[in-house]
């Protein structure tokens, strides 16, 4: 594990601990105003990928 990864691991642990401590605290989120768009890009099927005759 690199130094950076170790730091990242510690950071993750810290975050987890913090999460445990704060899990029960209320969260203020103005859900009406937040932009929760999820843009997904469906991989379009190319004609070459559906050609089961030639390949």
């Amino acid at each position, binding site marked *: 594990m690199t130094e950076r990864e170790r730091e990242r691991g510690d950071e993750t642990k810290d975050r987890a601990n913090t999460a445990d401590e704060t899990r029960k605290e209320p969260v203020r989120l103005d859900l009406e105003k937040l932009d929760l768009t999820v843009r997904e890009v469906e991989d379009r099927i190319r004609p070459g990928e559906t*050609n089961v005759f030639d390949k």
Partner: protein
Amino acid sequence: MISKRPFKVSLVFPPQGHFTQPYLALPCLAAWLRTNGYDDVEVIDASVEAYDRFLGAPYLERCEEIVARRLPLDEFDGRTAIPFERMERFRVAAEQSLAARGAGDRVEAAKRVVRDPEAFFDRDAYMSAMGSLYAGLRLVSAAHFPSVLTPHNFTTGYANDRSSEVLAATLDAETNPFVEHFRETLLPRLVARRPRVLGMSIIYGSQLIPGLTLGRLVKEALPDCHVTAGGGFLAYIGKKLMAAPGMDACLDSIVFHEGEGPLLELCRVLEQDRDLDGVGSLTWFDRSGGRVRAVENAPMHPIKLDDAPVPDFDGLPFEKYFSPRVVLPYDINRGCYWGACTFCTLPTVIGPGFRTRSATTIVDHVLELKERTGTNLFNFITDCMPPGMIADLPNELIARDADVRYWCDARVEPKAYDASGARRLFESGCRKLLFGFETATPRLLKLMKKGQSPRATLEVAKNCTDAGISVTFYAMVGFPTETAEEARDTAQFLVDNADVVREVSLQTFHIDEVARTYHHPEEFGIDILSDESADLQLYHDYTTERGMTQAEAARMFDETMAALRGTFPVFMGDNFLFFMQKSHYFLHLARGTTPDEFAAACRERAEREAAPPEDSDLVVDDDLRVARIPHSYAECTERLASPIARAIRPDFTVGRFVAGAAERARAELGELAPSECVLVHAPGGSPRFAELHEDGLTVLQHLRDAGGLDALLERTGAAGAARERLVRFAHDLYRLGLLRAVARRSASIHMTDRPGRTT
């Protein structure tokens, strides 16, 4: 008695072909040579060898390093718009900034799944594995940008229809992965072996550049080795290839049409140091007199098919194919007894005439292959089984208790595929048949000279389906004069019969130089366009007096495919991967799963993937990765998926080259403006990417911190519409594999503060 000779022959199938099962040509040639006294023949599937090496941890780790160096995401600073020419680069850089890390380990695990006789049939494990393999190939491609390697294709930034570019590609180690691959792996083996002949089977356009790359390396390292090549694709362009300046650096000769006779004669001539002009069907470079010229010999008669020995698969690495069991190809006949379809070019590829083996010989060979290899799974190679054979072969297989499972192509023959005929086929082991349906428009069927009606085709399909055989239809969009309304009627016909037809192999129509549509365009109301600067041109654009234009047909392909993906269970969501991997769906059928059971399982899986189970909580994937990117990935990908963008670099399995496509794409698709976006990806959960706004990332972090959706709902106290929005957001992320429906536990998000840097 035929004497054994110390004459070494190496037969190579160059990349790229599909990686799930071996191809047939080289085992046929090896068997013919060995039967005729050339024992020292080795057969190498260089394609599956390349896939196996590329999809391995050491290679992918190297690719990760190359991508970090060659395609850093932070070269896109977000201050200026991205012109069309750089959009692909941005897309790949953005994807790999999240996906590359750890790809090697995931791919190693994936290979174990697809090769395992039990894990392969666990659909969830299989889908995850295939997703990892595709992701691995995207990383390989990124490391050789702009080349793209998929299980179905290999394209480069070089135009395949210009010999100068094709030859340049064979020297470009930066974007052609096979230069390094051959140098490190295959070439040292060949140099150690010192074959007298290297014979390459080039049946697809995707093999051209890799094949010529190998030819060049071998000719440099082994000047005494005669490098020849044959195969379907070279039957199309071989003559042009041999006329191209500089091609003699990669090849010594080309064999046209089937290779048994010419290759044997070539070996004899070289062994006896005779002139090449006596080898039938060979075009070769005469280097005498200080200049190089191509000499075209007279054609040789093809062999009598019943004399051809059992294909010899010895030496092929069965364990390297990406399947738990190998499905062996076997040719029951060559050519087509119908031979009239106006779009078809098979006589060019295979050679004129139709020849078949007897049912007795076929079953003799099948049983011998079963004994030799231990597999009872076959892909019978036939362009169309003649009506007599449709009865004779099943009867022979049943009478001799062959106990095999097989799939093959078929032509609609209503009398042969009646209810009892179909049942007999099933009883003999047939589990899947693929028919050339083409279109539901009788007018077009007549123009195609198919000699069949949609009603007869459907009747045949129903008989097969009722017998338990899975039916696939080949369908075509954009045959000259087809209108959009007719194409939509065909799509509707397929949708209406989704309980009879399990799969559709959909193609766009294209014109190549050997089809009747090219030679008699007036019969089809079209004008052929040519590009004089493309000396290897095979496919042509055309204008049409009526019906859809080529561009409209390309869009209609997307529309039809969308309709099919919404209806056919095996096309829904990632189930499509079953269809795309040659023989993988068949392996389920061969194991005893019925087409109905398979369809039901696909539908259930698609529904489960679309929405989480009602009684579950949703948690953030353990390996969720996030990057802030300076342009919209979704917008970029949408533009690159447009037909005109795709036409810039067409592939030889589709074949449509569009004159001026790059200029038109630049004009029509414009630039990508700066836009702060968040790209999200969970490589262990799904191969897909999603784009969020900063708000979405904030909520995602809260989801992670809370430990799951239920806890966050409780802590926000959200109710009514607000609650619905949050739940919908979470469900969207679930559908994309970013959240999982599992027991609650904390997860880490690897955040990126700057483009391209995960922290």
